[in-house]
């Protein structure tokens, strides 16, 4: 069977449309956006309670007293959930989409009712529109309409227009043909036949269609949150992304309340509009209490009520608008940052959230103005490479994030690893006796129902699992890897764990699940998963030069697994939106960490000494790739310089104890200030930090290079018009977005000028693609490294105020006496840096050659990097 390249045709078609009909799409976009903005402004303007009052009076008028009271209670509930503003955004979107759907659907329905041929042509189109999965056209919608409300309106429209057409056609076709003939027999024109006979009689059916349009639109509006429409859809989207059942329930319930209200109101409106409906309603008039409950004010009374409330709303809005000046925080004694802006980007992975918020808190305590922004993986790197963020703490290197660095190696600074090694693995609950290794899974598929609970099918880990790991252990026929999502996998794990059912899940370390549940990581004797990544901090290009202090802190930053998983578990328990609180509480429980991770500057000193080589160095190392690499590198280089090194593999705790007691001289892999902080904390008085050798990554706002004169965040000021006042964001609630909204924009005084459009990473990238192709100005929330920087000519906006914040790193720590004993070496080590590419390639070389051949590997690697030894030991 030949492969039909339908997808390519569609791509070509979309490209062509975008290239040739851009003006048309822009027109629609403007219309949709204008309508939405206007309506949203109107709905957002009044005090919630007043608008609730107005809506309730409308319900009272249309359906009676009990409906009015219930509406009031329902909406007050929504308001109490803090979702009122979101609800009104959704309502505005929905109303715009509904009006357009009707404006399109009713005429088409009329046309279809009058012509069988049109009807036959329209029907399959409607089927197509209704059944094509929304995801399939949501993202292309962005290419045409950009992110935000217009794309959401279009997606909603596509889904919801069908019932408008169908019900109109049905309604008109249902009209007794004799009545139509009667109208004709009295000389009625076709137009008047439609207006005076067919439409009035079809009205109840058409109104049922309107009702359907609204209901379908509402269900779609939730999905449209993915393209940055915000509102309840955005809240749902956010909740799903974070497996936040609570928020999901709140947003979902709000949608239901809105839906029920709109459903009942459109039903009632259908009755009010049609004389037949009015009479039917009049026929069921009741008595007694029921009569009181269904009492409806006369239209005049209801109108007066609505107007009175609206006027009050208007007055309050005018008066209340003035009184909300934001209060600014003040610095403190340890004010290193002096309010400097730092933006930290992160992916909604637990360790990234934990480390990011740790740094947010640490830096805030040091007087920095920190914003955290959540991204998807790819956008995070783009943001970093583009300079939109200052650093990010969650680069899994060399493997997982390696490709990004390959592309953007020059554009980011690697501030070193702060945690590692990470690992990918399958995990089973501890109660699964006899399963400790991948090999043990063989023949026990029945217990697990033949299923391995997977995560997102697009994740690299899934790919590895399906294509390599299962095959290595001969499990591919026995087990099926169930594609799912991380939240779903965790939910499934939680469920199975509670029920003590067998389950095998795709997991990775570090992960809070190991803290919350008793899980066994399945051993991988065949090394099918490959060497584990370490978690690095990456900073945007030039960050360490601009921010030597923060960069230094980040380089020194490490966290232990215990610290990390403990913190993750705390954050997870605190729930969404409380990350910051959880981290603060956690830092309180672990005093001293802040000082360890962000030491206040002190005079660094070291005396030049001659006899350093005389005594063998005792170097402790962890069995982690980057440590193996860096330790052997130093060993190789130093031995060339006449030093002697005794390497000892040790666990983290003993290393610190050993260093403190002076039994050990050096360790190159101190993940500070986070991962190993508890060890550091206990022993820091007896240790010396020789600085970090690895650099962070960055978050940033990026603009295409053809947008001239904008190179820095400061340049955005006053040019909002060019960008429609919009900065295309990614998933709302992500660290980068929060950082951008809360810290970066205010730092540059842009918060009133620019609106950050919530959306998703794919949506942002689609928008970027669209704008780039049309050479239009666009500002996107990006991070480095990101492939976008490779694909497009983009400018990472410099962040002179450091509003995006800074990253983390790997430190070299030594015994207290070390600097005195080895002043030269201490100097070398302090000046030591490794780039991401260097470390990655070295690690890869070591892994490739296998255990026991590290020296060979280092030698081979040095042949390709001849400048490194000289750089490491500048004066030798």
């Amino acid at each position, binding site marked *: 069977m030949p492969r039909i390249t339908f997808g390519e045709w569609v791509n070509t078609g979309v490209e062509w449309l975008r290239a040739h009909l851009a003006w048309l799409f822009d027109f629609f976009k403007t219309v949709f956006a204008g309508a939405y903005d206007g309506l949203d402004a109107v709905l957002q303007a009044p005090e919630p309670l007043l608008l609730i009052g107005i809506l309730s009076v409308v319900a009272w008028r249309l359906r009676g007293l009990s409906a009015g009271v219930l509406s009031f209670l329902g909406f007050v509930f929504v308001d109490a959930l803090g979702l009122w503003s979101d609800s009104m955004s959704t309502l505005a979107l929905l109303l715009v989409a509904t009006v357009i759907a009707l404006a399109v659907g009713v005429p088409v329905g009329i046309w279809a009712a009058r012509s069988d041929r049109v009807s036959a042509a329209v029907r399959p189109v409607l089927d197509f529109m209704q059944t094509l999965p929304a995801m399939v056209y949501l993202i292309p919608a962005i290419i045409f309409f950009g992110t935000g409300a217009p794309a959401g309106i279009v997606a909603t429209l596509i889904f919801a227009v069908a019932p408008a057409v169908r019900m109109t056609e049905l309604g008109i076709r249902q009209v*007794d043909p004799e009545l139509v*003939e009667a109208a004709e*027999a*009295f*000389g009625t024109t076709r137009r008047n036949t439609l207006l005076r006979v067919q439409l009035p*009689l079809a009205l109840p059916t058409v109104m049922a269609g309107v009702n359907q349009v609204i209901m379908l639109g509402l269900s779609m509006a939730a999905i449209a949150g993915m393209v940055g429409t915000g509102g309840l859809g955005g809240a749902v989207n956010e909740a799903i992304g974070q497996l936040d059942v609570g928020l999901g329930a709140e947003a979902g319930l709000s949608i239901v309340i809105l839906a029920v209200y709109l459903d009942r109101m459109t039903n009632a409106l259908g009755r009010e509009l049609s004389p037949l409906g009015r009479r039917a309603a009049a026929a069921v008039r009741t008595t007694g209490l029921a009569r009181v409950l269904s009492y409806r004010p006369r239209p005049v009374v209801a109108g007066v009520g609505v107007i009175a409330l609206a006027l009050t709303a208007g007055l309050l809005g005018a008066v209340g608008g003035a009184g909300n000046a934001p209060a600014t925080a003040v610095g403190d004694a340890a004010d290193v940052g002096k309010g400097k802006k730092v933006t930290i980007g992160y992916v909604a992975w637990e360790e990234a959230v934990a480390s990011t918020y740790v740094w947010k808190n640490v830096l805030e305590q040091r007087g920095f103005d920190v914003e955290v922004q959540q991204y998807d993986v790819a956008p995070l790197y783009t943001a970093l490479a583009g300079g939109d963020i200052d650093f990010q703490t969650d680069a899994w290197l060399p493997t997982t994030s390696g490709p990004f660095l390959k592309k953007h190696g020059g554009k980011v600074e690697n501030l070193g690893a702060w945690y590692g090694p990470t690992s990918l693995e399958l995990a089973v609950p501890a109660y699964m006796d006899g399963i400790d290794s991948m090999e043990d899974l063989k023949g026990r598929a029945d217990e697990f129902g033949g299923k391995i609970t997977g995560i997102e099918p697009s994740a690299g880990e899934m790919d590895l699992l399906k294509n390599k790991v299962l095959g290595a252990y001969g499990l591919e026929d026995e087990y099926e890897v169930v594609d799912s999502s991380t939240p779903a996998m965790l939910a499934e794990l939680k469920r199975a764990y509670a029920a003590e059912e067998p389950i095998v899940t795709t997991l990775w370390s570090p992960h809070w699940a190991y803290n919350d549940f008793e899980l066994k990581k399945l051993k991988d004797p065949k090394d099918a998963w490959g060497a584990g990544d370490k978690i690095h901090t990456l900073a945007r290009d030039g960050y360490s030069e601009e921010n030597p202090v923060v960069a230094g802190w980040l380089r020194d930053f490490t966290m232990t697994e215990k610290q990390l998983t403990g913190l993750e578990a705390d954050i997870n328990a605190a729930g969404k939106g409380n990350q910051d609180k959880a981290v603060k509480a956690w830092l309180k429980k672990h005093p001293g960490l802040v000082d360890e991770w962000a030491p206040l500057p002190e005079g660094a000193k070291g005396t030049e000494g001659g006899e350093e080589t005389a005594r063998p160095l005792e170097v402790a190392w962890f069995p982690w790739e980057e440590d193996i690499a860096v330790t052997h590198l130093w060993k190789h280089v130093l031995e060339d310089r006449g030093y002697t090194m005794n390497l000892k593999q040790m666990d983290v705790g003993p290393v610190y104890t050993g260093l403190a007691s002076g039994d050990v001289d050096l360790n190159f892999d101190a993940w500070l200030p986070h991962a190993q902080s508890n060890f550091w904390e206990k022993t820091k008085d007896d240790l010396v930090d020789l600085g970090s050798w690895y650099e962070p990554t960055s978050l940033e706002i990026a603009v295409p290079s053809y947008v001239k004169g904008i190179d820095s965040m400061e340049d955005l000021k006053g040019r909002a018009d060019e960008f429609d006042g919009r900065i295309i964001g990614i998933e709302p609630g992500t660290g980068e977005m929060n950082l951008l909204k809360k810290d970066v924009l205010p730092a540059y005084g842009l918060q009133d000028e620019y609106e950050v459009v919530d959306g998703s990473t794919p949506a942002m990238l689609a928008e970027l693609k669209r704008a780039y192709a049309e050479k239009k100005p666009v500002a996107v929330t990006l991070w480095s490294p990101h492939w976008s920087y490779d694909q497009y000519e983009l400018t990472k906006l410099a962040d002179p105020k450091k509003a995006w914040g800074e990253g983390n790193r790997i430190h070299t720590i030594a015994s207290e006496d070390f600097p005195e004993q080895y002043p030269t070496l201490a100097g070398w080590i302090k000046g030591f840096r490794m780039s991401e590419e260097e470390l990655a390639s070295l690690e890869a070389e070591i892994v490739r050659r296998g255990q026991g051949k590290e020296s060979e590997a280092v030698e081979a690697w040095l042949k390709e990097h001849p400048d490194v030894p000289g750089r490491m030991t500048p004066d030798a």
Partner: protein
Amino acid sequence: MSSRLQAEKVYKVFGGRPEQTVERLRKGADREELRADGVTAAVIDASFTVEPGEIFVVMGLSGSGKSTLLRMLNGLLEPTAGTVSFDGQDLASLTAAELRTLRSRRISMVFQHFALFPHRTVLQNAAYGLEVQGVPRAEREERAAEALALCGLEGWEKSWPDELSGGMRQRVGLARALATDADLLLMDESFSALDPLIRREMQDQLLELQKTLHKTIVFITHDLNEAMRLGDRIAVMRDGEIVQIGTAEDILVRPSDEYVASFTRDVDRSKVLTAAAVMDRSTGGGEAGCDCPTATPDMPFDELCALCARTPHAVEVVDAEGARVGTVSQERLVAVIGDVDADDAVADTDAVADTDAVADTDAVADTDAADGAAKAPAACERHTTGPEGVAA
């Protein structure tokens, strides 16, 4: 002040190639063989003239093409061939707008299932035609109210159609048609959906209204009794063709063919025929010859029988002024009854051949009474004691 409606060699064909089909029909093609080709010949070669003020009934079974014919009269359907002209104007020559104006002002229609607009009140329904004409609201409501009053619906103006009984609804339909002051009323099986009693009441009302309004009315029905009761003239349709046009008496007494005859067989002649229909007009002129009771021209047939039985000679039929317009002998009565019982009697009736004289009410010619003479007393007796028995 009514207008003349004329149909000339009108054909209506549904389906492919209508012109060719008409040609085939003109050459005598059979309706059935056309149907095999997927073509329906609904109306074939229909010609007639409706005189001003006349009630012209088109009668036929369902599928005979009568409704199609009616819809060509106001241009709702366009004839495939032939012309329909109203007041000398060919409908086919009118533009769509002119045709609509014609329909809104001069021709109105009453439907089988009333076709009242359920979203309008009785008054709004009655005013519909005027609304289409663009008559101002106050005036049209006044005129609509008048039309409703005329139809006996005073006080029901604010009601809704679904609150009325069938008969009342059709009165609204009738009022709607009358309110526009149209000259021509097209009534499509208008009373068929009503109960027999109501139907009769409506027929009476229509006849009553016609006495004062003198509309030109084309009335479609499948009910021969209704046709006889209402129609000044009746056109009988069969399979798309008009097989006979004539007065009720013509249809009854001188059916043009077997089909019409069989159609009329079940009709209660004693209720339809009048003295004027059966009398011998050749003996008219002068005054009554003796003191014997005389008959009036509209005396029903059954009363005439009774009178005839009591009178030793032919009963004289005398009009309102006392002038003798004809006589009815017992032999003559028997001959008419004989048509019911003996089909060949039709052939023996001279006048039957004389079908050209469609509008001619005095077409009853001499009859050879000999064949039926023996039956006369018995028939007269039967009619005297139980006139309904004949219809059984």
